[in-house]
């Protein structure tokens, strides 16, 4: 956990060069591999979604298997509004995020009273409740056929969504940048620090006068709001919302994406999402059951041997190098 504190300290010193890397990669993708842009947009949506989970899981230490509920609320809200004629892109995002944050707040009131197994169970139950709702009001949500006919106005009134996904990609990247700056600011603020404190030792935080339950609820609502924004973005760029946005699979996927990259690290999601999609592309060839098998194996290996994901491994390697260099300097290798 010390490496995570170190990450926060280095982030707090201001923007560093490595933080530009993901954006350079996105620009390169846009210029050199335009045929990958639709997939790239999906990855961007997943990064935003994983970023919101990171706030909850990585920073506050709340393990949940029901985060898809808020993604789904955001997706359905903006999708249904767009079908009804409210088709501004940014207002749609805001509506999705607001609805999801409100849902997160209400559910969080109950869920956060419990812990461990009960908390996991209630998170899953929330997703199932929303799933049942979406399934039983097909007149509004399209039911099992999915919500179709979503069209969004051009962004800033200038850039219309094209069939090659160029505008969608740029739009998603813009939203990701906004979300990242917000989350970055949040985790470096005193509020964000108190969340980490709650993760490390909730009893002690209570003892020094932090309203733990209230902070958790705020973090939960914010995370739900960002997840809702990711959902709304997915609805706008896919122009479709299916019932699978409220599935356990999606909750599981976002958890795996985050953990592969490294939970509790700001840029974990940026690594986890591409790794996940690439691994899926390679390992799922022909038969999705193979993929399930490999995914299971990856999860077991990550949980038992590689805690902290890719960024965690990198961090511990760096620490080892640093220690070695120190030893060499002292003259006793």
């Amino acid at each position: 956990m010390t490496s995570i504190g170190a990450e926060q300290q280095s982030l707090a010193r201001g923007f560093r060069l490595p933080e530009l890397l993901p954006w350079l990669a996105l620009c390169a993708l846009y210029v050199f591999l335009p045929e990958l842009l639709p997939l790239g947009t999906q990855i961007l949506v997943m990064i935003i979604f994983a970023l919101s989970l990171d706030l909850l899981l990585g920073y506050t230490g709340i393990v949940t298997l029901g985060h898809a509920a808020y993604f789904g609320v955001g997706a359905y809200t903006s999708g249904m509004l767009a079908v009804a004629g409210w088709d501004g892109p940014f207002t749609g995002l805001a509506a999705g995020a607001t609805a999801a944050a409100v849902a997160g707040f209400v559910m969080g009131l109950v869920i956060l009273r419990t812990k461990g197994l009960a908390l996991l169970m209630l998170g899953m139950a929330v997703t199932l409740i929303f799933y049942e709702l979406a399934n039983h009001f097909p007149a509004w949500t399209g039911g099992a056929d999915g919500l179709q006919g979503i069209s969004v106005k051009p962004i800033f009134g200038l850039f219309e969504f094209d069939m090659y996904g160029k505008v969608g990609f740029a739009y998603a990247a813009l939203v990701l940048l906004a979300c990242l700056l917000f989350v970055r600011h949040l985790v470096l603020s005193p509020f964000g620090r108190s969340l980490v404190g709650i993760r490390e030792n909730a009893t002690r935080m209570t003892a020094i006068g932090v309203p733990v339950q209230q902070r958790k609820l705020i973090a939960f609502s914010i995370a739900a709001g960002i997840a809702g924004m990711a959902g709304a973005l997915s609805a706008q760029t896919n122009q479709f919302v299916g019932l699978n946005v409220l599935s356990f699979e999606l909750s599981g996927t976002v958890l795996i994406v985050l953990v592969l990259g490294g939970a509790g690290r700001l840029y974990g999601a940026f690594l986890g999402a591409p790794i996940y999609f690439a691994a899926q592309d390679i390992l799922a060839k022909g038969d999705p059951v193979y993929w399930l098998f490999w995914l299971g194996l990856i999860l077991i290996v990550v949980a038992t041997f590689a805690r902290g994901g890719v960024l965690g491994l990198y961090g511990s390697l760096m620490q080892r190098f640093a220690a070695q260099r120190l030893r060499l300097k002292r003259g006793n290798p």
Partner: protein
Amino acid sequence: MASLLSVIVSIVFHGLAYAMVLYVISVGLSLTMGMLNFVNLAHGVFAMAGGYAALWIMKAQGAPFTLALLMSALLVALASIVLERLLYRRLYGAGELDQTLMTIGLIFMATAAAHFAFGPLPQRVDLPPVISGHFFVAGRDFPTYRAFLIAAGCVMFLVLWFGIERTLVGARIRAAVDNRSMAQCVGINTSRLFTTVFALGSGVAGLGGGLGADIIAIAPGYAMEHLIYFLIVVSMGGLGSITGAFVAALILGIGDTACKILIPEVGAFFVYAAVFVVLLIRPAGLFGRTT
């Protein structure tokens, strides 16, 4: 009036049978959760393995139903000891997240393995003729299989209750559930005890999987699809409480059956809402201790 009565009887009867299957499968999870606070989402894997094993033993070896059930429970218990030593043990002190991930990984691998070995379709259950028919009581007919399930579930509850509440091993288990470090201090080998309880719980789950194979179909997605129900039983009953798990299974089984029969459109919705209300009033479950 007579039809209302028959609906009620049918709900209670089918609900009870379902509740017993849920109880037998979930009670082991409640014990291991209470003892070591290990978030074992893969508990359903053992039930699924028990179901596959029992059906395979019956089909391939021609063994009678009860013998096949006992053998499959034993097999699952042995396999769970191997898993406990190889995987679970590494994560005892670890955080909730790592335990969650590892056990979800186990579910995924077990699902894929079941898919490869037995195909994607649910397994056909050939019940022995003794329990596959109906019997008549008070002018009504009841399926014998469900009556058998109810009896088996009650016997299991009584055996477990007696074992935990009235024997020395049970006293040790209760001590470890209550306060593990204290139990260690008075000389109880909690590590070995946990392996025992883990194997017992998994074996009982395996038995439940085989017993309930005709109610909860044995298919590759078993461990994931029904996970929420096992978790509801455990968290609504209260961790580590055998009686709590029994009561919670009764409420869930009868409630779920009633909703599915009376209001099929929104049945599932009500069950989850009820769970919310219970945990809102008692966050530690009905029989759980608030610490």
